C-alpha cells in the first residue's frame, strides 16, 4: 500500500547508507527500493500517467527526509521532470512545481538542474499566466540572481487576468532585470487597477524605482507624483499609506526638477498634501505621513507655524492657492496643515506620537521661531504615558539644543525638571544631556536648574558621575551665573560650616564641581571664584576627575586646580597655554548606563582615604563575579557598543538630508557632538577600540564630505573657503579614506563597499572642484576603485548600487573630457546629485591596525648620543597591534621638511602573533647634521596595498602611498653626553 507518511528512519538505514556511500552510490538500499516500488514510480515512468496524490505525498516526504539517498533523489527528480512534461491541469502542475522547489531548497546541489528544467519548460504553460507566474516564482525562489525574463513576456504576464499573479510580478518586478522605462510604464499603469493590493504593489514599486535613481523627464516625474497624490484619496488603507510614501519620494524628486524660484512653493505644496493625510483614521497611514513630513526637506516658516495651531492662521487663510501651487493638481488649501503636529502629538498610538516628535527633529532645524513654539508642545510630551515618547521628545529637544534652537522659558521648567526625577535612568540621562548644552538666558532659570540637579543628586546618588559632569558643563556655559551662585553659597562650602566638616557631602562636592568650571568659560566675571575653593576641590580630586574623565585626565585636573588656587585670574587662555586641551563646548557623554559593567569596576578606585578599603571589600564579590564572567561580559559589552555605534551611524545618516539641503553649519555641529559622544567611550578592550576608532574615522570622513559638499549646494549661510583650502580638505578626505581602507581588518564586504562608495564620491568631488592638477591620478584611482567594487559585488553576489552603476556608465565620459569643461562638470554634478549617504551599520568588530613607538628614557633632558656626520643608532621599542604579515611597513625618519629617510621594517624578523607583537628595532639614521643637538621625528607608515599609483620618488622608499599608523614621536639627540 502506498504510504503517504514520511518513511520511518531506522538506525540501520542510516548506517547502511553511510557504508554504501563508500561502496557504490548508484544503488538503492533495499528499503528505498521497496519504497520506490510502493510509490509506483516505475509504473509512472512507463505509463506517462499523472502521479496520484498519494504518490505525490510520498515523494514529498522523501524530499523532506534528510536521509534520503542521492540515487533516490535523482529518481525523484526524474519522476518530477517527466510529470512536468506530461502536463495536466493547473492544479496538478502547481503541486509538481511545489515539489520541485522543495527539492531544490532541501537539496541545494540539485537546484541547478531544476532551474534548467524550469527554464526550458516555462514556455509550455504560457497560455495560463497564473501558472507561468508560478514557474517564474519557483525559479525566483531557487535562483539567487536576477531571473532573465523577456520584457515582452513579463509585460504580457502582468496583463493577464490572474490578479494574484499580477500582484506577485509587480512586487518582485526588480528581480527580472526589466528596463526601468518599461517598468515605470507598467507600474504607473497599474496604479489605476481596480484591485487595491495591485495598486499598492504598483505604488511600492514606484517608490523603489524612484529611490534607486533619477529620471530625465520632468513630465514623467510629475505624472508619477500626480498619480500618487490622487491615490491619497483611495478607499483602501494600504493604498493610502503606500501613496503617502510615493508622494514623499516622487515629490522630493519633483522638487529637484523645479526651477529655483518655485522650489520652496513646490515643496510646501507637497508638504501640505501629506499634512492632509495626518488625520486619517488608519494608524499606518498616519505613521507614514509623519515619517514623510520629517523627510521632505525645507518648508516655509508660515506653513510650519500653521502646523502648530489648529486654528487657521490669517496668513495661511489668504495664501490659499495662488502661491502654493506651481501645478494645478497640487492645489490644496494651506489650511490642511492646521494643527497637524498637535494632532500627531496627542494621537492615541504611541508610535504616531513618537513619529511626530521625530519629525519635529528635522523641522525645527528650519526655523527658530517654529522651534520656539514647538517647544511648548514638546514640553507637554514629557508627561506622556509612554516612556518611548518621552525619550523621543527629549532627544528632539537635544537636537534643538545642538542647533541652538532650544529656548527654555520659566513655564517649561517644572515639567522639564520633573524628568530629572523620573524613575527611569534613560530619561534622566537624556534630560541631563540637554542641560549640558542648553544655553539658559536668565539667572533664575539657571538657579532652578542647579537646584534641581542638587535635589536630583540627593534622590539618585547613583547618578553622581553624570550629574557632576552636567554641573561642570553648565558651569562652563554660564560663567557669570555660576559665579553668582557660588558667591551665595560660599559659606556652605567652607569646610567648617556649622561647626562640622562637610566637604564630602554630595551637595558641597557638587558646588565645588560647579565652581571649578567657571574659569573655563570666557565670560567676564568668570575669575571671581575664590582661589581657596580650588584647593577644597583638590581634596576631592579622585571623585571629581572620575566624573570629568571625558573632559580632562586626573593629572590635568590636578595641574589645573593647583594653578587656579594659586592665582585668581587664571582663565581659559592660560589653561591652553599650559598645554592642556579641552574638548569643545557642546559635547556630551554617552549614557553611562550602557556600560555599567565597566564603571562598576572603576567605582572602588574612586574613593580615597580610609573609606576606600571598606568600599573595596563590599565590591570585592562583585569584582570576582565580574572576572569570571569577563568573557561573556565583554561580548555583551561589545554588542552594546555596537548597538550604540550603529545609532550614531543612523544619526550621521539622518544628517545627510541637512547637508543636501544646505544646512551645513548645523550638520557640522551635530557631527561634532556625535564624535565627542564616541570619544567618551573607554577604548580598553581590543574589540571596542577598533570599533570606536572606525566610527570616529567615519564621522571625520562625513564631516570632510560635508565641508566639501557646501561648495556644491547653495547654503543658507555661505561660508566660502578658498580653493587652496578646499584642496587641503580633499587631501584630508583622501587620507582618511585611505586610512579606513587599509587600517581596519575584518570589515565585511558590505562595509568595505560603503567605504569604496565614499572613495568614489571623493574622486568625483575632486573632479568637480580641483580642476587641473592630479587629474590623471584621480582618474586612475577612480577606475581602480570601481574595478575593486565590481570585484566585491561579484564576490558577495550583491546587486551594485545605483550610484555606482551610474558612475561606471559615465566613467568613460569623464575620461574623455580631460581638462574640464561645462559638459564634464554637468556629468559630475549629476552623478554627485544621485549620491546619497547610506546608513552605515557595523556588524562585526573590526580590528584596528596601529603601532606604538617608544624610545625608552629619551626626552629633551636625556638625549641620545650621536657623532655628527656618522649614522646614529636609535633603539626603538615598537608595538604592533593587528598588523598582518603581508603588510609592508616603513619607518619614516624626518629631520626637516627636506630630509626624510625611510627604513623598511621586515615583519618576518619580528615574530609573534598577528594581534600584538612587541620588539626592539635598531634604526639607523644616516642624516645626522653638523649641530650640537637636534630632534628627529619618527613614525611608522603602512603601504596601502590597493593603491596602484606608484610614487615616483627614488628607489629607496615605499612604492605606494603610506598611511601612518602611529603617532609621530620626537627623538632627541645630542653630541654632549649627560654624564659629562
Amino acid at each position, binding site marked *: 500500500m502506498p504510504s503517504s507518511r514520511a518513511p520511518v528512519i531506522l538506525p540501520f538505514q542510516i548506517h547502511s547508507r553511510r557504508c554504501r556511500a563508500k561502496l557504490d552510490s548508484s544503488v538503492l538500499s533495499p528499503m528505498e527500493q521497496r519504497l520506490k516500488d510502493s510509490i509506483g514510480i516505475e509504473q509512472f515512468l512507463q505509463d506517462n500517467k499523472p502521479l496520484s496524490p498519494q504518490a505525490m505525498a510520498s515523494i514529498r516526504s522523501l524530499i523532506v527526509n534528510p536521509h534520503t539517498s542521492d540515487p533516490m533523489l535523482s529518481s525523484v527528480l526524474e519522476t518530477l521532470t517527466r510529470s512536468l512534461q506530461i502536463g495536466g491541469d493547473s492544479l496538478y502542475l502547481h503541486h509538481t512545481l511545489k515539489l520541485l522547489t522543495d527539492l531544490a531548497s532541501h537539496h541545494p546541489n540539485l537546484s541547478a538542474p531544476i532551474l534548467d528544467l524550469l527554464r526550458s519548460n516555462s514556455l509550455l504553460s504560457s497560455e495560463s499566466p497564473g501558472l507561468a507566474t508560478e514557474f517564474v516564482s519557483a525559479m525566483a525562489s531557487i535562483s539567487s540572481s536576477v531571473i532573465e525574463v523577456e520584457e515582452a513576456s513579463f509585460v504580457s504576464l*502582468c*496583463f*493577464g*487576468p490572474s*490578479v494574484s499573479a*499580477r500582484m506577485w510580478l509587480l512586487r518582485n518586478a526588480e528581480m527580472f532585470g526589466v528596463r526601468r522605462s518599461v517598468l515605470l*510604464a507598467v507600474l*504607473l*499603469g*497599474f*496604479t*489605476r*487597477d*481596480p484591485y487595491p493590493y495591485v495598486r499598492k504593489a504598483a505604488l511600492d514599486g514606484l517608490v523603489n524605482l524612484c529611490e534607486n535613481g533619477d529620471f530625465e523627464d520632468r*513630465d*514623467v516625474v*510629475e*505624472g*508619477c507624483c*500626480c*498619480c500618487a497624490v490622487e491615490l491619497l484619496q483611495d*478607499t483602501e488603507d494600504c493604498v493610502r499609506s503606500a501613496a503617502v510614501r510615493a508622494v514623499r519620494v516622487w515629490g522630493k524628486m519633483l522638487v529637484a526638477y523645479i*526651477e529655483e524660484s*518655485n522650489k520652496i512653493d513646490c515643496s510646501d505644496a507637497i508638504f501640505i498634501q501629506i499634512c492632509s493625510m495626518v*488625520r*486619517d*483614521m488608519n494608524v499606518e497611514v498616519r505613521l507614514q505621513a509623519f515619517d514623510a513630513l520629517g523627510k521632505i526637506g525645507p518648508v516655509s516658516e508660515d506653513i510650519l507655524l500653521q502646523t502648530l495651531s*489648529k*486654528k487657521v492662521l490669517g496668513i495661511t487663510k489668504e495664501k490659499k492657492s495662488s502661491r502654493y501651487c*506651481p*501645478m*494645478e*493638481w497640487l492645489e490644496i*488649501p494651506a489650511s490642511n496643515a492646521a*494643527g497637524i503636529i*498637535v*494632532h500627531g*502629538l*496627542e*494621537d*492615541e*498610538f*504611541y508610535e504616531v506620537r513618537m513619529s511626530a516628535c521625530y519629525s519635529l527633529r528635522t523641522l525645527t532645524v528650519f526655523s527658530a521661531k517654529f522651534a520656539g513654539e514647538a517647544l*511648548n*508642545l514638546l*514640553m*507637554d*510630551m514629557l*508627561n*506622556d*504615558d*509612554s516612556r518611548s515618547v518621552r525619550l523621543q521628545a527629549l532627544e528632539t529637544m537635544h537636537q534643538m539644543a545642538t542647533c541652538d534652537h532650544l529656548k527654555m522659558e520659566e513655564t517649561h521648567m*517644572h*515639567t522639564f525638571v*520633573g524628568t530629572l*526625577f*523620573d*524613575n*527611569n535612568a534613560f530619561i534622566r540621562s537624556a534630560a541631563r544631556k540637554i542641560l549640558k548644552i542648553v544655553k539658559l538666558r536668565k539667572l533664575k532659570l539657571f538657579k532652578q536648574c542647579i537646584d534641581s540637579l542638587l535635589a536630583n543628586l540627593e*534622590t539618585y546618588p547613583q547618578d553622581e558621575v553624570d550629574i557632576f559632569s552636567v554641573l561642570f558643563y553648565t558651569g562652563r556655559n554660564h560663567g557669570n551665573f555660576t559665579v553668582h551662585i557660588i558667591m551665595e553659597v560660599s559659606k556652605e562650602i567652607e569646610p567648617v560650616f556649622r561647626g562640622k566638616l562637610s566637604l564630602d557631602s554630595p551637595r558641597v562636592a557638587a558646588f565645588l564641581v560647579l565652581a571649578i568650571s567657571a574659569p573655563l568659560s570666557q565670560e567676564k566675571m568668570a575669575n571671581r571664584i575664590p582661589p581657596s575653593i580650588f584647593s577644597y576641590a583638590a581634596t576631592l580630586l579622585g571623585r571629581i576627575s572620575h566624573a570629568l574623565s571625558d573632559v580632562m585626565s586626573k593629572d590635568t585636573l590636578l595641574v589645573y586646580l593647583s594653578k587656579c588656587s594659586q592665582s585668581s585670574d587664571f582663565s581659559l587662555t592660560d589653561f591652553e597655554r599650559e598645554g592642556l586641551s579641552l574638548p569643545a563646548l557642546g559635547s556630551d557623554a554617552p549614557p553611562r548606563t550602557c556600560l555599567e559593567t565597566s564603571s562598576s569596576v572603576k567605582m572602588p578606585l574612586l574613593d580615597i582615604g580610609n573609606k576606600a578599603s571598606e568600599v573595596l571589600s563590599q565590591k570585592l564579590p562583585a569584582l570576582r563575579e565580574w572576572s569570571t564572567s569577563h568573557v561573556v561580559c565583554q561580548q555583551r559589552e561589545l554588542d552594546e557598543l555596537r548597538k550604540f555605534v550603529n545609532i550614531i551611524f543612523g544619526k550621521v545618516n539622518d544628517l545627510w538630508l541637512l547637508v543636501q539641503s544646505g544646512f551645513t553649519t548645523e550638520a557640522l555641529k551635530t557631527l561634532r557632538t556625535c564624535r565627542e559622544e564616541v570619544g567618551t567611550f573607554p577604548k580598553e578592550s581590543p574589540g571596542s577600540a577598533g570599533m570606536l576608532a572606525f566610527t570616529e574615522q567615519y564621522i571625520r570622513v562625513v564631516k570632510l564630505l560635508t565641508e566639501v559638499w557646501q561648495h556644491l549646494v547653495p547654503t543658507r549661510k555661505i561660508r566660502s573657503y578658498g580653493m587652496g583650502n578646499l584642496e587641503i580638505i580633499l587631501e584630508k578626505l583622501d587620507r582618511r579614506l585611505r586610512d579606513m581602507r587599509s587600517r581596519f581588518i575584518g570589515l565585511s564586504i558590505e562595509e568595505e563597499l560603503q567605504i569604496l562608495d565614499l572613495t568614489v564620491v571623493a574622486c568625483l568631488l575632486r573632479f568637480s572642484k580641483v580642476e587641473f592638477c592630479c587629474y590623471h591620478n584621480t582618474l586612475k584611482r577612480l577606475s581602480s576603485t570601481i574595478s575593486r567594487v565590481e570585484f566585491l559585488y561579484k564576490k558577495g553576489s550583491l546587486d551594485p548600487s545605483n550610484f555606482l552603476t551610474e558612475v561606471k556608465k559615465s566613467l568613460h565620459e569623464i575620461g574623455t573630457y580631460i581638462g574640464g569643461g561645462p559638459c564634464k562638470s554637468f556629468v559630475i554634478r549629476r552623478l554627485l546629485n544621485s549620491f546619497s549617504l547610506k546608513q552605515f551599520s557595523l556588524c562585526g568588530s573590526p580590528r584596528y591596525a596601529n603601532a606604538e613607538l617608544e624610545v625608552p628614557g629619551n626626552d629633551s633632558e636625556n638625549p641620545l648620543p650621536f657623532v655628527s656626520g656618522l649614522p646614529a643608532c636609535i633603539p626603538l621599542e615598537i608595538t604592533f597591534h593587528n598588523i598582518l604579515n603581508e603588510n609592508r611597513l616603513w619607518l619614516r625618519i624626518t629631520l626637516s621638511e627636506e630630509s626624510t629617510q625611510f627604513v623598511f621594517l621586515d615583519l618576518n624578523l619580528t615574530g609573534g602573533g598577528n594581534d600584538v607583537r612587541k620588539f626592539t628595532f635598531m634604526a639607523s639614521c644616516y642624516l645626522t647634521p653638523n649641530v650640537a643637538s637636534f630632534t628627529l621625528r619618527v613614525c611608522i607608515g603602512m603601504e596601502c596595498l590597493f593603491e596602484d599609483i606608484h610614487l615616483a620618488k627614488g628607489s629607496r622608499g615605499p612604492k605606494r602611498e603610506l598611511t601612518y599608523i602611529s603617532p609621530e614621536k620626537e627623538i632627541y639627540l645630542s653630541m654632549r653626553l649627560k654624564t659629562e
Partner: protein
Amino acid sequence: MPIECLVLGAGQEVGKSCVVVSINGKRIMFDCGMHMGYADSNRYPDFSRISDAGDFNSALSCVIITHFHLDHIGALPYFTQVLGYKGPVYMTYPTKALAPIMLEDYRKNMDRRGEEEQFTSQHIEECMKRVIAVDLKQTVQVDKDLQIRAYYAGHVLGAAMFYAKVGDAAIVYTGDYNTIADRHLGAAQIERLQLDLLITESTYANSVRDSKYNREGEFLKAVHKCVAAGGKVLIPTFALGRAQEICLLLEDYWERMNLKVPIYFSAGLTIQANMYYKMLVNWTSQKVKETYVTHNAFDFKHVQTFDRSLINAPGPCVLFATPGMLSGGYSLEVFMQWAPCEGNLVTLPGYCVVGTIGYKLMSGKPTRINLDKDTQIDVRCQVHQLSFSAHTDAKGIMDLVKFLSPKNAILVHGEKPKMAILKERIESELGIPCFYPANNETVSISSTGHVKAHASDTFIQRCLSPNFKFLKCGVPDKSASGSKCTEGISRLQVVDERVADSILVEQKCKKAKVIHQDELLLMLGEKEHEVKFAYCCPIRIEKSVQTGSKDLSSTDNQHLGLDKRSLLELLSVKLSNKLSEGNIQDFGEHLQIESFHVSVCLKDKCSHRTSNSIENQSELVFFCCNWSVADEKLAWNIISIMECCTLNTT
C-alpha cells in the same frame, strides 16, 4: 426613494437625542434620550410623531442606542415599558452593562426630589432584558434588508457610532464622539464608507480646542506642589469616566516620580465602576489595551480605599470622592473638613450646575460659603479647575465629515447659531449639502438608486484584464520658454476605466444587463454606423501619345478597364513620390491608404463632385475618394497632392 430624517430631539439644542430615519422603507430610531432641563412633557421626545396610532412596533424597525448618557438613553424605559415598543433595541455591550446603573441612579434622584416617577426599577430591568448587545464592527442583520454596524466613538466607555444600510442607501449616526484619544479611551474610528447621509453631533460646532496636554501638565504641577508641601487634594468626580481618566494620569505620574503619597477612592459607585472598566478593557484606549497583558491599568497600584477615619489623618493624600459638583454626599463632607486649610487643594471639573458649591467655587474666589442657615465654610484652600471634554471639536467634526465624504450631512446636538456657522463651513469647504433641522422637523434627501443587473461574460473578462492608457492632458508646450509658464505644461495622466467601457442595457420585460461596449451591436442586432467623407477629385491628364481616343468617356469598356487600372497605377506612383506618411496599397480597382479609399469615377454626375471643376472636362479624370473621420488630415493632404498633379498617360 428618499431618505427621511425626523428629528425628535437634540435638534438645534443639546439634550434628549432622538432621530428617526427612514431609509428604503425601514425606520430606525437612533437614541432615545431625555432632557435634563425639563420636568414636564418636554422632557421626552414627542413620540406621537412616529405613529399617530401609537403602533410603534410596525412603525419602527429597530431602536439603536449609542451610549449610556441619560440624554441618549433616558427615555428608553418609558418608550419600551410605558409606551409599549416591543421591537429590537441595539446597544453595545458596555452600554448595556452600564445603562441600568445610570438609569437607576437617575430614578433614585428623581425619587429623592419627590418628582413624579416616570418609570420604576422594574421597568428598567424589563427594558434591559429586551436589549440586543452588539460588538464593534460586527455586522448585524436586523432583518432581510437592514444591516447595522457599530464603530468605536470614544466619548465614554462603550460609546459607538452606528452605520445602517438598506439596499444601497447607507447612513451613519455618530452619537457623541471624540476624535482625540485620552488616557482611558481611544479616538473615534471608522472606515471610509459610501454614505448618503451623515448625522453628526455638533456640541462644539464653532470652537477649536488646544492640546489637553497643557492642562494636564498644569494639573499635575498643582497636585504635586500641594502634596509635596504636605497638603491634601480633593478631587470630586462623577464615578464613570472622569475619575478613571484622572486616576490614570495620577498613577502614571506617581510611578514616574516615585511618589509615595496615598491616593484614595471613596467607596461606592467608583469601585463598582472600576470593576466594569477592568472587565471592558477592549473598549478602552490603545495604551490600556497594550499593557493589559502584563498589568490592567485600572488595577491602580497606588489606590487604596478610603476610610472616614482618614479624613483628619495627618500627612498628604489625594482623594477621589463623589459627587462631582460638591452638591452633597461624601465629597461635600470632606470638602467641609479640608477647605479651611490653606495647604489643601480641590480640583473641579470644567462645568458645574448653577447652585452647587462647585459652581460657587468656580465663579470668583469666595472666602466663605454659606451651606445653609447654620453652617458656613471658610474656604482658604486652593481651587484648581480641570476640564476634560469628551466631545470632539469643530476641527474633529470637519475632519470626520471630510474623511467620510457623505452626500449629505445633518447636524444635531448643538446650539443653533454655532451649527449655522458649521453648516456654512461644511457647504463651502467640503461642498456637502448640510442641514440642521429643529426638533420635530423632517429633512428629506434623495438616496442612491440601485439596479440589479446581470453582467455579460465579456464584461467580466474585460474587467479582469488591465486596460490602462496614458494621456497627455493640458495644452502642449508652445514656446521654448514654456518651463516658465506653468499652466502651459502638459501632464502625464493614467486612466484605467474598465467600467466606463461598458453599457447598462435595460430592455422591457428583461432584466437589466451590463455589457461591454463591443457587444452592444451584437445584442441589438444592428450594424455599425460609420461616418465617412467623400470627395470626387479631378486630376488633369496630359496625353503624350496622340493615338489614344479623344474622348475618354466614349471609348469602349475594355479599353477603359485597362485604362482605369493604369490611371490608378500612375496615381499610385505620383502619391508615393510625394506622400511621406501612410502605406499605399493597390487593390486594382482602388487604392487604399489607411482608411482613405480612391477609385476612378466614371459617373457623369457624381454627387461628390464640386461644381466649379466643370470647365475643360475633357482633360480631367475624376477620382472618387472616401475616408473615415480618423484620417481626415491625411485625406486632405492626399487630395491636395492629387489636385495639383497631372497624370501623363502614354
